[in-house]
């Protein structure tokens, strides 16, 4: 797999190894997909279902990058491309994780936790009881900053 791919090697051999790589990726992806769906339909506790689904997703993403997008730590350039992916992933983690941190904190303070936000809790109750949307956010209009 890590042999230099120059014009000198036998193209048939190289094609065979490439086909093998795609096939491996396909089989692993299929197993992981089936695993994720099976976990959902199984009798596992909910937490474990989520853990299995997330793990399968991460592994499958890694498989796709390795076997279909051909990113790896071997070879200068594909290492650079992989580092780019990892950099993107870390920035994405900051953005998505930050969003989750901020929005769940806000939502905790504004609606859901029973002790701290009793008035908004009532609003929520009223909201879900009659089933019709109401303006529950009005008192919390954010003040604009630059």
């Amino acid at each position, binding site marked *: 797999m890590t042999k230099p*791919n120059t014009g000198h090697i036998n193209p048939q051999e190289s094609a065979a190894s490439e086909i093998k790589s795609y096939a491996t990726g396909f089989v692993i992806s299929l197993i992981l997909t089936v695993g994720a769906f099976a976990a959902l339909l199984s009798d596992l506790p909910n937490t474990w279902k989520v853990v299995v689904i997330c793990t399968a997703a991460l592994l499958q993403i890694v498989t796709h990058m390795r076997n279909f997008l051909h990113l790896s730590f071997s070879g200068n350039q594909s290492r650079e491309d992989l580092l780019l992916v990892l950099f993107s992933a870390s920035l994405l983690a900051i953005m998505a994780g930050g969003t989750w941190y901020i929005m769940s904190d806000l939502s905790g303070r504004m609606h859901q936790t029973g002790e701290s936000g009793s008035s908004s809790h009532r609003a929520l109750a009223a909201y879900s009881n009659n089933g019709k949307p109401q303006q529950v956010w009005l008192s919390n209009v954010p003040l604009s900053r630059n």
Partner: protein
Amino acid sequence: MSENSLYPGLNLGDKHGDAHVQAESTVFGFWVFLMSDLIIFGILFAGYASYLDPIGLAGGPGPKELFDINSVAIQTVLLLVGGVAYAGVSLTVKYGHGRGNLVAWLLVCAAFGAGFLFFEVRDFISQAGKGGTPQVSGWLSSYWTLGGLHGIHVFCGILWIFAMIGQVATRGIDDVVKVRLSMLGVFWHFLDLIWVGIFSFVFLVPLA
């Protein structure tokens, strides 16, 4: 894979000379652009998660009422097979197996992509029938936006495939076309990658 790999996706290899070198900056640039696209999807994922609560659902139908797990499984398989089928395109270009094979493989990819779209649109229609339109709640807005954006990407991918078939027909498999096929490959595999996130986090996790 190989030491002289210059860009993401299956490399053309040294045999292809100029095309291989040209592809370095072009495919790399496209890859950078896809990273930007990845951020768009990532923010939509985070948004989807933040709307997935009783407030965001706003009394409208939720995941349990709307999602059809069988259809999601079919879509997943179609897209996965369609993605792997692009290996046929890449290898045909790399080893020069001719225009006929190339167009055939491209059509296979397009067919699987179209199959995926068929089931996705069918789902959207049936969800709308069950009262799950994006105008009902914040959560449904974000679900339709995220799923729809991915669907639009697949649709664009199919259009691109036909544009490439047109180019193969009119100008043959020259260097520029080879580079563009490499970009298309990266795009097509990238869509698969996003779908892994969608079926796991959009469909399966909320159902768990």
